[in-house]
């Protein structure tokens, strides 16, 4: 028991990595399983954040600032992508008056 609490009090890089994997998995589930386009976009942001987290964990482990710089760039890109994505959603909504991804099946045979 003591050992358990002992173990819990030492946080290593692996902990952050596992957390990143978990968040990533949750985000991917969100993209798969929700019908609403907006939720999908939010899940994508979640995925990006998970990746950022992993990136920063490794940067910390290596004492390398480049990881942080890269993470900053990722945030900027994510912002741009969110803007565009939302603009598209708005455009789609105007035509169809709903945001169901199930209905957006034009890219088919």
């Amino acid at each position, binding site marked *: 028991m003591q050992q358990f609490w002992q*173990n*819990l*009090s*030492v*946080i*290593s890089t*692996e*902990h952050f*990595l*596992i957390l990143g*994997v*978990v*968040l990533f*998995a*949750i*985000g*991917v589930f*969100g993209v798969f*399983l*929700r*019908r*609403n386009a*907006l*939720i999908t976009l*939010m*899940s994508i*942001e*979640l995925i990006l*954040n998970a990746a*950022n*987290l992993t990136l*920063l964990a*490794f*940067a*910390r*482990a290596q*004492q390398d*600032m*480049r990881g*942080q*710089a890269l*993470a*900053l*760039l990722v*945030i*900027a890109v994510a*912002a*741009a992508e969110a*803007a*565009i994505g*939302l*603009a*598209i*959603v*708005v*455009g789609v*909504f*105007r035509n169809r*008056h709903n945001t169901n991804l*199930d209905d957006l099946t034009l890219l088919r045979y």
Partner: protein
Amino acid sequence: MMGLGSVSSSLLLLGQAAQVQQVPAASLSVQGMAPAWAFWILSVLTVVGALSTILRRNLIGAVMSMVATFFGIASLYALLSAHFLAAIQVLVYAGAIMVLFVFVIMVLNREEAEPWALRSPVIKALGTGSLVYLAVRLGEMLLSPKAGVLQTAGHPSGEYGTVASIGDYFFTKFLFPFEAISILLVIAVIGAVVLARTVAKPTSVHEAGAAPLPSSNGDGDDAAADASHGGH
């Protein structure tokens, strides 16, 4: 639900991680002030927030959960000595992007009929299975006894994670990506405006629900762009 499954597996992994952690060689002693329990609380907060984002029916509820997730993540960034990034995370993500989402949700004022995508059970099973496998395998890989990569130097040096050192990087070695990102953001702004603007000729007198305000998107964009230009 799937979410619970993944949560339980992740907890299992964390347990395993704890077990392997007999050797305290790769320890991450955060700078004195933040004890280990901070990590656990924040990670729980983050995971719960994420789960609730994807599971809630109410759109605004989902957005709020997302904001909570982002706060959690920002705090975790701080734990990782990425202070500047934590601030940016809050400003950009929680502050600008989520606001943007809220605006759009206000515009698209619809209620969800059935939140879950219709899909054949086969596909769902396949997807879930692969995802779980992927996650487990990745975790296993990360936990495998390999020396070197995950060793830390213990206490990070004073310069690590400060605004000064990030600035130093961005204005010397990362100058080109920095400028390129600015251009990217400009393009995004223009793109968003173009994509979301009203078409010139209306087909009928009523355009149900269509009261788009390109300017609102533009404002949101500008805010987002300005925020990330904050380090400019």
